[in-house]
């Protein structure tokens, strides 16, 4: 559904995208992970026909984004990161306008249906200017869905939402992803893990990793970080843990828990447990922590840097 080949984009002298290549199949949800300024939005803007690439090609739904831009735009639903909306229109007017631009018959009915699908039916005749961030986000999503596109491109769809709304939006994405292609960007790893079939990690305009979320994580786990919790006071817990051989980076948290790290293949958890119990504590919890995106990033960029040096 999406085939990107050697995509490069320069903004003046600055190169925002370096030779990016990836693809996404029908019924696949692909997460685009990366920090701000990594090139996520640039890539999405090229795929939606907003701007042409400097070099390379991109095909969406079988059409070239430069040569057959209008065909691509007919088949893509896009929600930009800032969710631009006409605040002087009601939700229904706005969606009807977007539906008319896409030549949808009975545009008002469709606008109404789409509002219903994002749970905004009861606010159809309210002005968008009075909407909360979460509601605006949903109007933006409705706009992207109104023509039932083959490919859905969402730029940070869950940013700035409260947890309930995040769950709702994720549910919608998962539902659409069953038979259509979804490309969405995020910088929250757990989000990518929950809904993506595949994750692309992009940094400084380059794809630094591409895999399923599970593989990505296990591949990168060189060391394991663990949270430890005990009943009651834990004044000297950190010191006790510190003494166990193989334990690194001990950190006493404000909530009384203690975090530490050990190298993979050198599991020190039994020793730590013993030390804790012998220290007179009641062990409540010892839980491995997943790697955060930041850590994966550090890991990946470190790999990249060392790779360059050796070559």
């Amino acid at each position, binding site marked *: 559904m999406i085939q990107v080949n050697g995509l490069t984009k320069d903004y003046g002298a600055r190169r925002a995208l370096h030779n990016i290549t990836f693809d996404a199949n029908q019924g696949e949800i692909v997460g685009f992970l990366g920090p701000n300024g990594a090139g996520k939005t640039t890539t999405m803007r090229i795929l939606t026909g907003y701007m*042409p690439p400097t070099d390379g090609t991109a095909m969406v739904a079988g059409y070239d984004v430069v040569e057959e831009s*209008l065909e691509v735009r007919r088949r893509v639903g896009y929600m930009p990161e800032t969710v*631009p909306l006409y605040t*002087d229109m009601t939700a229904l007017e706005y969606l009807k306008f977007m539906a008319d*631009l*896409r030549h949808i018959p009975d545009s008002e009915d469709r606008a109404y249906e789409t509002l219903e699908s994002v749970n905004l039916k009861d606010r159809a005749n309210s002005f968008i200017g009075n909407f909360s961030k979460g509601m605006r986000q949903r109007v933006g999503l409705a706009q992207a869905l109104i023509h039932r596109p083959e490919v859905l491109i969402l730029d940070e769809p869950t940013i700035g939402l409260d947890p309930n709304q995040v769950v709702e939006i994720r549910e919608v994405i998962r539902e659409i992803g069953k038979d259509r292609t979804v490309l969405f960007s995020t910088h929250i790893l757990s989000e990518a893990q929950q809904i993506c079939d595949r994750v692309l990690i992009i940094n400084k305009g380059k794809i630094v990793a591409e895999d399923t979320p599970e593989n990505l994580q296990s591949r990168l786990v060189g060391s394991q970080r663990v949270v430890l919790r005990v009943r009651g006071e834990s004044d000297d817990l950190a010191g006790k843990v510190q003494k166990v051989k193989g334990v690194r980076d001990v950190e006493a948290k404000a909530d009384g828990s203690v975090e530490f790290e050990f190298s993979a293949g050198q599991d020190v958890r039994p020793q730590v447990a013993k030390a804790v119990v012998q220290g007179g504590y009641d062990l409540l919890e010892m839980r491995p922590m997943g790697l955060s995106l930041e850590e994966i990033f550090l890991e990946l960029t470190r790999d990249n840097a060392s790779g360059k040096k050796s070559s």
Partner: protein
Amino acid sequence: MRNIWTIAKREYDHYFISPIAYVVAIALLTLVGGYFAIILLAANQQAASGFGFVPEISEVNNLFAFILLIATPALTMRLLADETRTGTIELLLTAPVRDYELVIGKWLGSLLFMVSIIAVTLIYAFILNNQVDPGIDLKLLLSSYLGLILLAGAFLAIGVGISAVFSNQITAFISTLAIFIGLWWLIGIPASLLPVGGEFFRYMVMNTHFGGAFNTGVINLSDLIYFASLIAIGLFTGTVAIEIRRWR
């Protein structure tokens, strides 16, 4: 074609909830209406004293044309500049709409709004028709209003073009006004100074084609071509500005 209409309709509707559009409409109609009342009063008084003159609708429209020069930049400054500022341009440029459809749609929406204001002034013509005997010159009426609409169309097209260049409304307003002053007045200065080629500059002056042509009841091909060219240039500028924005 359908997209042009969709965009024009939204723009037209938007003017009716926009304070600036009401300010423009009220200012235009008050000034022109006041002027009309004065002309009518003066004509009636002088008729009583025996030195009667017959007031013409073209006198009102001459003032209307001049006020358009200041009023239209206020109507067009927002059109594309504001879409760029708020980011909504991203929606339009990723919808299946051609760049020129967007520009023409915006222009058409503003022109329809302006035509609505112009249509209100037909009341003056109606009043005048009842005041003078044997009624007003219908041919002059038609040609004057056609000229006024073409003039407004040209002003608005240039305004839309300039609005596509900037993302700041004020910058768009001032640039548009500067171009209008240039076309209305400055470009005519060389006409009287140059020994040769003065004709060209005289042709370039906007009011030559309205005050000196349509508004005297004369419809010339050269005047039609003049306004059509300005409209084309304005809309073309807007389309190119959007195209450049994409490539930047």
